[in-house]
């Protein structure tokens, strides 16, 4: 593995911009010092430290010129809720980038599947694919409801194909993104094009996607980012985030895994672990 530059000791930076994407979701911008050359990969994450509270892993939502970096945070637990109470100018400690990101493949068609907050890291891969003039990009953008289809306007301004779907039918197709995926793969079979699949969202959805890509023998061409799991150190040492099966970590071996690897992870889609290490059913 190439050695990537990384901030290991939290670097306290001021929030330069804070934009609410929805009632409980906001995008935070920071300016990284110019000399760091972090070159993060889509799918990688940072540990974001709220002094006096806690530190949480957040995927990179966008980065421009190795300088302006963005994270989209949704209020779920106590710390993420406290993040949403912060203001422009407040200090946050950043360390990263950590983890294994997406491989950018040169397949003819890129299919991107986002469920809810999963759009945040995928937004970064979409802009990366566009800048590399990927031939065809198709986004299946799903959420529970219309208001949670984050970055809709921004993505509408690109010329990628987008299929929307909502669980409650308030916008786009009424149903899960997996249904659209299956349809697309069925049609694509006749066309003989090569595909790469990038996905992020609730693990139940990812599990559904894995089942479908398996049917089409595409598990090696499908990449999944597992969010929403407890991470403590970020570099594979402390043992907090290891998944049962072959003993791979989310924080270092992941959070992005290919489908053929995920098949060996017995915890995938079924069990999580909390901070004390006990297992719970997802």
């Amino acid at each position, binding site marked *: 593995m190439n050695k990537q530059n990384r901030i290991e*000791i*939290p670097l*306290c930076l001021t929030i330069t911009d804070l934009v609410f994407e929805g009632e409980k979701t906001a995008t935070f911008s920071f300016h990284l010092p110019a000399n760091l050359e972090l070159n993060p990969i889509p799918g990688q994450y940072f540990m974001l*430290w709220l002094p006096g509270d806690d530190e949480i892993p957040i995927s990179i939502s966008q980065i421009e010129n190795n300088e302006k970096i963005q994270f989209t945070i949704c209020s779920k637990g106590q710390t993420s809720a406290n993040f949403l109470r912060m203001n422009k100018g407040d200090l946050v*400690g950043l360390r990263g980038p950590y983890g294994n990101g997406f491989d950018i493949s040169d397949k003819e068609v890129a299919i991107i599947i986002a469920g809810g907050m999963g759009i945040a890291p995928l937004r970064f891969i979409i802009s990366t694919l566009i800048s590399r003039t990927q031939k065809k990009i198709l986004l299946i953008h799903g959420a529970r409801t219309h208001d949670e289809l984050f970055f809709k306007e921004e993505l509408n301004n690109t010329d990628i194909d987008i299929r929307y779907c909502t669980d409650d039918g308030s916008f786009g197709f009424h149903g899960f993104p997996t249904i659209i995926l299956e349809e697309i793969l069925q049609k694509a079979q006749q066309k003989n094009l090569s595909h790469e699949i990038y996905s992020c969202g609730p693990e139940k959805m990812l599990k559904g996607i894995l089942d479908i890509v398996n049917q089409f023998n595409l598990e090696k061409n499908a990449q999944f980012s597992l969010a929403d799991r407890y991470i403590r150190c970020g570099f594979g040492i*402390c043992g907090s985030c290891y998944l049962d099966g072959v*003993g791979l970590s989310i924080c270092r071996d992941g959070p992005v895994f290919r489908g053929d690897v995920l098949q060996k992870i017995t915890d995938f889609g079924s069990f999580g672990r909390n*901070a*004390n290490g006990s297992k719970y059913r997802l």
Partner: protein
Amino acid sequence: MTELKTLIGTVRIRNPIILSSGIWGSTYSTLNRAYKEGFGAVTTKSVGLNPRKGHPNPSVIYIPEIKSILNAVGLANPGYDAFSEELREINPDVKYSVSIFGSSSTEFQQIIQHMDNNLTGNTPIAYELNLSCPHAKKVGIAVGTDPNIVYTIVEACKVRTKVPIWVKLTPNITNIKSVAESAISAGADAIVAINTIKAMMIDIHIKKPVLGNISGGLSGQAIKPIGVRVIYDLYERFGSEIPLVGVGGISSWQDAIEYILAGATAIQIGSALIDYDAPQTLIHNILNGLNEYLSREGKSFSQLRGLAHE
């Protein structure tokens, strides 16, 4: 290849490199994987009576300048009951020891008895008593610096189980020899040293400590000279009678040999795993280096122990 099978008291392991407690070892899958990658034995994360979620994050920070880790995980664990279920899933060929912490001899007894009853299929090679964690209240260092308390705990554990009792000591003490002496006279089968060294870090922009727990323990390359000195002192005092497991900052075969020359019977490795995507390479490098060194010196592995004292 020289014979690197190692005897720690009555415990025989395939090579002298052991995974230290708190690194990787929170789940059966990682313990299985670590053993498969080549460790001679693996140690579990320390387990206590009740579930503990540990301290708030940041709780583990890497300091690249000194290749060291500052941590205040705070003994996060699911409690001995759930953890013994976890350990039942360990593959039968895996040599593992269970690290335990507690605040009193009865707590240690309760946990050991439960483990003994639950792990009959694949008994641990040892119980490693963590009398040395520097960042949790009432346990670890709080009981591990008083020779009388150490004696009571070790004695209480020895009467409860046939599994060897290893005692892990802290360097955060002026006279480690008197604590070791208590442990040994109470029947400890081996001494493991060292645990992390009390340390902290302050952010100069927000002017506050970085660790959620304010202070924690330092491990990794910066602490190696301290660990070597502790093993040297213990060997000087107790000679080859009691097995010593050296731990602290080992990341190469040279480091391993240094500890063995100081008096270690075997070694443990923790923080150095940060440099590897898989520990296999690290273990391989150390075993190879050790082998080549032994053949250059024309010595067997066991002859190396404590040579720096002659």
